């Protein structure tokens, strides 16, 4: 292989990388699906906290004896543990899109995704 050819190939790879990164960045910035989403947590109607869904973390919401642990991973939120009767909130699937919620009825805990890009106005379930 000549040096000329190697540079040419590297150029192509670089251009391809820039294009891919550009598309990825545009998709992330414009669609705002994995970035810029906020998780809003309320307990009995009162704001408990807001969390950036682009930062992976595990949070335990405690209210007296009531415990609910949720996990933020790859832009999605899942209730992973709770000491409520029935564990319905733990059984609910993870959420990641604006307008989606996970609700723990016995503990009156609501996890709600908000953000700039609203995919739906409501979720029928």
């Amino acid at each position, binding site marked *: 292989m000549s040096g000329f050819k190697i540079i040419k190939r590297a150029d192509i790879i670089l251009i391809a990388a820039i294009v891919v990164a550009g598309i990825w960045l*545009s998709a992330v910035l*414009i*669609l705002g699906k994995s970035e810029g989403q906020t998780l809003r947590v*309320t307990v*009995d*109607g009162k*704001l408990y906290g807001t969390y950036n869904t682009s930062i992976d973390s595990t949070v335990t919401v405690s209210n007296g004896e009531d415990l609910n642990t949720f996990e933020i991973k790859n832009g999605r939120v899942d209730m992973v543990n709770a000491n409520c*009767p*029935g564990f*319905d909130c733990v*059984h609910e*699937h*993870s*959420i*990641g*899109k604006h*307008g*989606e*919620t996970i*609700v723990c*009825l*016995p503990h*009156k805990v*609501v996890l709600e995704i*908000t953000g*700039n*890009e*609203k*995919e*739906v*106005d*409501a*979720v*029928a*379930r």
Partner: protein
Amino acid sequence: MNTKRFFITFTLPVFTGCMIITGCTAKNNPDVPETVAAGSTAVLNEKNTVSAIPAEAAFFAMDTFMTLTAYGENAAAVVQEGESLVNDIENRLSTEIETSAVSKLNKEKTAVLDDDTAHLLEQAMEAWQLTDGAFNISLYPLLKEWGFISQNYKVPSADTINDILENTDLSEISFDKKTNEIEFENKAMEIDLGGIAKGYTSDALIKLFKDKGIASGMVNLGGNVQLLGTKPDGSLWRVGISSPYENTDFIGILTASDVAVITSGGYERNFKQDGRYYHHIMDPATGYPADKGLISVTVISKDAIMADALSTALYVMGRDKALDFWKSHSNDFETILMDDTDMLYVTEGISESFTSDTFSTTVVRK
């Protein structure tokens, strides 16, 4: 990727981006909604015209989380009034509240009902007849036995189930339409209007909204959605149909106005015992969780009470019977069914308004 999807994915963001660059404000841009905290008040803009910011009330009632949204003048007062309306209805209908009309009826086996409750009961009886028993309000003792009321879940013995099913024949209820007097001839019978209470409540809320001059709004009663008009900018509401699967958010998205959208699925409330899953939608014929091959049923109708009853009834019926039922009542409702092969069946009246990126869809025609 189909053309429509391509348009949404690429053209729309570019368009939105251009609007942001040209300094178009969020108020005039329908694609940028403004979030308002639960329970906050409506904000009217300087010209005192209908604001793009909704008034919202979010609260727990009827064992669910509810959100009432309204746009326009007085919207804040109207959603507050809506919250008290919900509480009034709950106090009248809940089996969990000892002083409710329904609790008293269950205890004394006879009552003279107020007009509203009597009318709702009549509709429940009609739904029972219409669905050939697939919708039945007398399964309350059965649900208690399975632990779906207390959430102390257990599988009852076959004998217990059969005994309870003896007391679920609604023809043993006598009802005098003139006097609103109701009596259970079978004294072991107990009813629960929970299967239509949310439909009834959302209907009542939308009526209240209309009476108060609201032209655009939405109520979401724990996932029972009812829409009033269109969004303030004239565009249709977008309702996601929740997916039973962990890795998918929505079965698909429906665009609509002025209808109720009600979904039933066994994945919502269930428990596992001895390696088997048991869910909360009971088949009145067997006393066990309905098991006719459907995973999710959505009913779309102008009549929320009917949509509520039918979402349960169609789930119990199973795909073939449910679609036959639709064919003979296609003026009254539309439906989206998902069966256990993940195939979607969408009736023709909404086939243009429903899109799914994830699942194969069959359009059902009359």
